[in-house]
């Protein structure tokens, strides 16, 4: 491998060492398939604008049309609130599409990454490359 590639790897390692603190430092992400994007669509039952994390409870149609409740954790109101989200960004009854990182154990839950609201607008819920 060329020297240039090694220095790139060194920089990436250094960045990950530093960034290790970052993002959702309240807890580890070991319970999620972090980085694996899945999508679901359903109807918001309740949006909890709470610390240390916001939480989406959503009814998702399952097999034979039977509704199943999913619980999706997100960044905190402190973080989201400074990046365009509000308490009213999601409302009970809203039909939304959500991109999320699923739980590893297969239960109906995960961490939400972005949400497309009924008006077609997409709200980012995690740091993107430009932030």
């Amino acid at each position, binding site marked *: 491998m060329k020297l240039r590639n090694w220095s790139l790897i060194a920089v990436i390692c250094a960045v990950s060492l530093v960034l290790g603190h970052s993002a959702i430092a309240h807890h580890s992400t070991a319970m999620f398939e*972090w980085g694996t994007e899945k999508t679901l669509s359903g109807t918001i039952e309740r949006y909890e604008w709470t610390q240390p994390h916001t939480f989406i409870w959503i009814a998702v149609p399952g097999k034979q049309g039977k509704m199943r409740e999913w*619980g999706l954790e997100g960044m905190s*109101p402190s973080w989201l609130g400074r990046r365009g989200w509000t308490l009213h960004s999601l409302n009970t009854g809203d039909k939304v599409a959500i991109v999320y990182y699923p739980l590893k154990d297969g*239960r109906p839950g995960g961490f939400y990454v972005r949400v497309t609201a009924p008006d077609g607008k997409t709200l980012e819920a995690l740091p993107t490359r430009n932030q």
Partner: protein
Amino acid sequence: MRSTVVPVAWVTATCAAALLSACGSQSPPAAPSAAPSAAAAPEASNPYAALAKLPDWGGVWDVTFRPPQAGQAPPAEPKFTPPYQAQWDKYQALNKKQKGLNFVSEVASCIPPGLPQSMTQPYPMEFLFTPGRVTILIETEGLTRRIYTDGSPPPESPDPSFQGTSVGHWENDTLVVETSAILPETSPVNGINGHSDKLHISERMRLVDPNTLEITTTRTDPAVFVEPYTTKVDYKRHRDWKIMEYVCEQNNHDALDANGNAAFSLKHKPGE
């Protein structure tokens, strides 16, 4: 968004200040005081007057992690004693295996982070200057750090606490803070749980440009580190932000399980 809001706020504040001082220069001179000597005495002893000499650290400060620039040496890894090296190796192996954040600590169960980890949480903080004291209010967990700058020595054997016992002094525009008596179950660096009662944290805090505060943190604990371990972190100023309330117990789904492993609860909040 952040890069535009901050300068606008700063420009507004600066222009407002300039406008006020311009108006002031056109005002008629103040009426002479009836008893100048009596009026001057309390002012001279007013401890708040000395605060005007301190740098402006107003606003809210948000941690940023500056990646190393091209040609710049990457940050050094800590050098650990054998028991802590084993913990570190396990953590690094996990980082290679799975994406995301792999450091499991009691912070997930709403036990607050201790110093120095409390200073690098993803939520901002603010600084208050009062006579003989700097107070840092950290949004995460609503933590408070009291740094005594009145020149009194640190107490002889303070009770251990999450944020430790701090004394500080100003070296020109740099605040130098020395902290000890930090609870040994806290984390001295990401990836490591626990340390001895000898952990000492030295911090140097200064503005490196009008809206960037740099904090250099040195951790010393012979039980953990073979040599003192220093990191440098930047904080960006947001004049228009306000610190929010943060009660971790409000709706926590991430408390560790009985074996101390990361977990996730799908139970509803009480009352729902």
